[in-house]
């Protein structure tokens, strides 16, 4: 494969070029209620060429090898056009060329598991909620996805690494009269098929939750003191803070850059956040990013001070900061962009009981229902929660969407638990989907957030 890629690359006239080829194999099985709605195993492939010429960096993706020549010409022309018009010519931070082949260690390779076994596993999990009369339906799927990546660059890099992601995820929909409730359920990871085996308890717990939520009361709009559980706090860390540590997202916003300067005190003294794709046995694990840079654990916040940022080679050069190996593509259809790998709040010392006692009165908000940001403002949904009175969880609440200001909220994180938990499935949609986007957190207490109940 590398010989074919090098042949294509040798035809490019440019200051720098790289070419990524990916073979993508995927198994998907899905149930809608008791009906099997999808079972398919496919393999497909494609190329992404990047060309740097006279300070312009252009990308083209193509799927037919016979289109390579046309793709090369198009990318060369686009790079020249950008080079002519761009204000600050693109430079790539220097990195050592790497030759390596890396296969992740998997506890049972899903590619070796017969499709019938995957189907049976999914059917078994799907039956757990469907046994309940108040569960109206489910939409639960199994997927395993392998990106077998080959990367060559004009600087001499030659890297092969495959990324294998396995998951069982979906929704359980409960119903009582006109009222329906939707609960998300998920397990998975990047360390093998074993991750999704023997996970009955996940589906049992989420089934019970879907039934209990029919009895929960909608939360009243207002401002509350809250404890966020790990998944919700992980979502906040990813959505509200993490995205602004992505150098490409803020580089052309003078006001965001001014606020996100290294050395700025943004959080409370107890807040430490890092992004570490190299951490073992977590969803976002990878060794090399999609421009051949080794991933590095990157401290983003230390004692409330912004100390680092996520970079591609281009942005590292533009900012004069170290490369971090965070330039990642969804697959062969996309140019790499800067992504979080595994972002998390580092654990503190308090147990969950300690946090509840400290909160005394407020809300305990649990699990995420999506999130979005627009600069300093963020919105994300919580699956459910509880009123906390006198340090004890009381009645259950639902229909919770949280809105806030990033900078204000970072300064209101007043206590951090000792129970770090990392997400097992991801779906960050920054223009491309990243199903390996991992985030996590311990329980944290926030002194006030706005909740838009009904």
């Amino acid at each position, binding site marked *: 494969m590398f010989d074919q890629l090098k042949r294509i690359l040798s035809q490019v006239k440019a200051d720098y070029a790289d070419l990524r080829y990916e073979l993508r194999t*995927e198994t998907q*099985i899905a149930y*809608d209620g008791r*009906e*099997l709605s999808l*079972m*398919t*195993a*496919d*393999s*497909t492939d*494609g190329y992404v060429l990047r060309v740097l010429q006279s300070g312009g960096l252009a*990308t083209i*993706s*193509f*799927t037919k090898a016979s*289109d390579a020549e046309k*793709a090369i010409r*198009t*990318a060369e*022309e*686009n790079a020249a*056009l*950008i080079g002519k018009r761009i*204000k*600050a010519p693109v430079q790539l931070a220097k990195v050592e060329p790497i030759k390596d082949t890396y296969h992740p260690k998997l506890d049972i390779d899903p590619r070796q598991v017969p*499709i019938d076994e995957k189907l049976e596993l999914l059917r078994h999990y799907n039956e757990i909620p469907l046994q309940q009369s108040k569960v*109206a*339906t489910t939409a639960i799927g199994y997927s395993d996805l392998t990106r077998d990546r080959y990367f060559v660059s004009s600087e001499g890099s030659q890297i092969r690494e495959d990324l294998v992601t396995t998951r069982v995820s979906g929704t359980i*929909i409960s119903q009582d009269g006109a*009222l*329906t*409730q*939707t609960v998300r359920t998920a397990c998975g990871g990047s360390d093998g098929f074993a991750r999704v085996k023997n996970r009955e308890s996940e589906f049992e717990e989420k089934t019970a939750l879907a039934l209990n939520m029919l009895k929960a009361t909608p939360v009243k*709009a207002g401002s509350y003191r809250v404890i966020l559980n790990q998944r919700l706090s992980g979502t906040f860390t990813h959505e509200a803070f993490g995205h602004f540590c992505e150098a490409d997202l803020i580089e*052309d916003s*003078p*006001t965001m850059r001014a*606020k996100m300067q290294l050395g700025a005190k943004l959080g409370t003294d107890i807040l430490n956040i890092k992004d570490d794709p190299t951490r073992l046995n977590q969803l976002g694990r990878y060794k090399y990013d999609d421009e051949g840079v080794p991933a590095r654990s990157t401290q983003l916040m230390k004692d409330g001070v912004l100390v680092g940022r996520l970079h591609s080679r281009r942005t590292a050069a533009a900012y004069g900061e170290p490369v971090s190996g965070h330039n990642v593509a969804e697959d062969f*259809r996309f140019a790499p962009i800067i992504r979080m790998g595994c972002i998390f709040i580092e654990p503190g010392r308090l147990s969950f009981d300690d946090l509840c006692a400290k909160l005394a009165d407020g809300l305990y908000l649990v699990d995420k*229902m*999506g*999130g*979005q*940001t*627009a*600069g*300093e*403002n*963020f*919105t994300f949904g919580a699956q459910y929660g509880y009123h906390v009175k006198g340090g004890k969880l009381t009645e259950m609440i*639902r*229909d919770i*969407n949280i*809105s*806030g*200001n990033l900078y204000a909220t970072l300064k209101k994180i007043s206590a951090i638990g000792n129970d770090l938990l990392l997400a097992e499935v991801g779906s960050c949609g920054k223009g491309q989907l990243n199903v390996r986007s991992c985030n996590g957190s311990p329980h944290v207490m926030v002194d006030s957030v706005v909740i*838009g*109940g*009904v």
Partner: protein
Amino acid sequence: MEQLMAIARKSADKVEIYSRAVSTDSVSFENGTLKDIDSKLLFGVSLRMFKAGKLGTAYTQNLIDREELVRNALVSLKGGVEADYDLPKTGQLPKLDAYDSAIGKLTNTQMVDECARISAAIAARTKSQVNVGAGRTTLTIRLLNSEGTDVSAEFSNYGNCAEAIFPGSYASIAQNQVGKKFEAFPDWMIDYVANTYHAALKEAKPAGGRMNVLFLPATLYALIWRLKEGTNAKNVYEKTSRLKDQLGKQVLSEKLTIVNEPLNDQVPGARTFDDEGTPCRNLPLFQAGVLKSFYCDLCYGRKLGMPPTGNGFRGDTTSKPVPALQHLTIQPGDKSFAELIGMMKRGIIVGGAMGAHSGNILNGEYSIGLAPGIYVENGVIAGRVKDAMVAGNVYETMQNVVAIEDTVCSSYMGRFPAVLFDDVSVAI
């Protein structure tokens, strides 16, 4: 594709082959400078094989190994996905004007020049960060099935988007323009972005409560999303839609007529057949607020015993067809945009919506962050609110329509006018 059909037919009762070839160039300007030109040349084929009422599927990005594609579909067939519906035999279709050959002559340099012009024109007036994008797409679809259907279509699309971004955020005032060929970004859109940006620059801190809320064409999708789920035959079949027993009933305000118009070729993407080869037709969903129809693909049409509506669409060749509304529009009302603002005693314009995908969509509930929210007092824009949310249930909110704008604008999820509602909860 004919070779693939011949191979696949040997092992199946019915066969469908769907292909897409797409070519795109997109240009992005951020803060006045050319940032990126990204191109794609993508091809894909999807195969569906039916045998004894079961379905097998497979896809590939090239057609080098047809036998392997068929083998993958046969493995899939073993799963036993039920599919006892018929494939359509589609012959003569109306001619639509969905492709403008002028798109082929447009150079990337012209797109860069247009972005530079728009960016400079807005920035000169707002002194803000301005982001501009341009995109050109050509798409060819072909669908063959074993009933003798062989239909194809070509599409062209050109679009520009421009936004003026408020300091310290990504909340912005934006406009999108789309067409089948290159057209200059109109002056009125530049005026709108610049004038609205100025009016909303100052931060306002009104009290929350129930008030007028004006959804823009660009943010109405947050509500429409719920209606799309409610009228989706899949959710009706699964009895999870709140509208499952409401056909013929008054569900929304009588001011609201919402239709799917695939045959309207004034706008890009008009279709005469869906991604399963079923002929497309214009479909009223809500006529003066009365629920008129659900929409379906072949699979859910069969399950519900309703004729397919021509709404089976795929995301791309790697995904299966599902019921989808791709040509949705709300019929315009009789008020200009300025008149709508003038009618607001105290209220919020939803300038950008965050978190529309969260919350209990099937139940119709929404709770969205405003990015930005624009505060209006006595018919005049008084400033911008931060950290605010609007929330409610779409089936209640959409009964409280005050007035509808007299034009529609192509936006995410469809072509919409601005719609003014009353009595919506705003948390600030």
